[in-house]
């Protein structure tokens, strides 16, 4: 129970800071709305129906917006040298990682809700008749995404290249999330049978388990001094 308490304490601390400063969520929120505007002008609606490519646009916006915010996970603590203080505490480092991942998952989930709402309004989307399945798809994909990006965010914060390194590290590994996320979402939007979505949900689940598991095991090697 102490382990879970540590995870909760770390997550709560990050979420409290975010609630008070609204630094990341404001930037991510503004970013996703503006990206929606730009995507509208990047599509020739005489040739392509936005509804047909909406799932792809949505997932790319989630990835780009997510990188923007999650890339700064360790920024505040690194700036003031506070992270060294965190490392001196006797908490398990994998619990620290899971706490940070949980906080990032909450933040990115809020931004994802905004993305679906905004794109639904901008492009007149229908989200299908299986909202809980859509929720499962999004949850698994986001969990895998934050698992990987939290780990690599800790790494990039400690390099001379900083946040500019994060997309190079993470993008090759996000291909399963994009493929299965877009596939499942487009089938749900199109009202296809759930049997066509089940495989994608399983693969996204495997992606999430792999990402978070690898992150928890390897985080200590990234942050040790």
């Amino acid at each position, binding site marked *: 129970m102490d382990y879970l308490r540590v995870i909760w304490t770390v997550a709560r601390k990050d979420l409290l800071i975010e609630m008070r400063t609204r630094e990341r969520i404001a930037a991510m929120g503004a970013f996703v709305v503006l990206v929606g505007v730009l995507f509208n002008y990047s599509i020739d609606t005489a040739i392509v129906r936005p509804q047909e490519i909406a799932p792809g646009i949505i997932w790319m916006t989630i990835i780009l917006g997510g990188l923007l915010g999650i890339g700064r996970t360790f920024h505040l603590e690194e700036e003031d040298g506070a992270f060294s203080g965190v490392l001196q505490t006797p908490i398990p480092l994998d619990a620290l990682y899971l706490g940070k991942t949980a906080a990032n998952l909450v933040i990115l989930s809020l931004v994802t809700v905004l993305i679906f709402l905004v794109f639904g309004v901008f492009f007149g989307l229908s989200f299908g008749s299986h909202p809980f399945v859509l929720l499962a798809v999004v949850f698994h994909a986001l969990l895998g995404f934050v698992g990987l990006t939290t780990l690599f965010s800790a790494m990039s914060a400690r390099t001379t290249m900083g946040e500019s390194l994060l997309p190079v590290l993470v993008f*090759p590994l996000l291909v399963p999330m994009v493929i299965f996320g877009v596939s499942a979402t487009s089938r749900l939007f199109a009202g296809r049978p759930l049997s066509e979505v089940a495989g994608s949900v399983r*693969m996204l689940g495997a992606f999430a388990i792999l990402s978070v598991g690898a992150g928890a095991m390897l985080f200590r*090697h990234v942050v040790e001094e």
Partner: protein
Amino acid sequence: MPENRLQRTGIALAALGTLGAVLLLWMVFFWVPTERTLGIAQRIFYVHVPSAWIAFFAFGIVALCSGVYLWLRDERLDMAALAAAEGGMVFCTIMLLTGPLWARVSWGTWWTWEPRLVLTLLLWFVYFSYFLVRNATENPDQGKRFAAVVGIVGVLDIPLIHVSVTWMRSLHPQPVVLRPDGLSLDPDMFITLMVGLATATMLFLGLFLMRYTVECLKREVDQRRTGSRAAQGA
């Protein structure tokens, strides 16, 4: 010094690999029959496929050495991972160059979103990330740890990426060697492919051993330089 033995072995393997490459070229241009449906362009198969196998084999070595390095912190494992990564990147690049050449002739396009090509391109970028993080830190030991983490996460994710991209429809020729119902390759073609694989393996191992030796010597020089600076300071 053990490095001398490794270096000599590396040079010998590289020399054998070079001879093998000459033999392979002769076999490809003059001996092996032309494939009935894919035509003369198919002969690039004997360079393309062995390069692919070595690229993935090398990455496996990178991941294994990286994992054990994080556990034991033995510098030799880090050096082995680095040497394997450099060799693997060479063969990965060869595969990425020969693939589009074959695609251009066979399918009329330089690039298709064909699963194996995409997987190789992503693998190349994982290798690229490995070198990028390694050199992007002020503390070299930190760079080694970061590179090891990239190697391990890469190898865990590569099978998932493979399933993902293969799940989509593929233009790529279907497997003819590693098939559940056995080999479907002409015997002469199989022999040529095996010569290609042996050549690529010897070249990779030769490069690996030579690079490992160079890295050993480099670190020894760095250590002596640090030691003499400390002595002068004292």
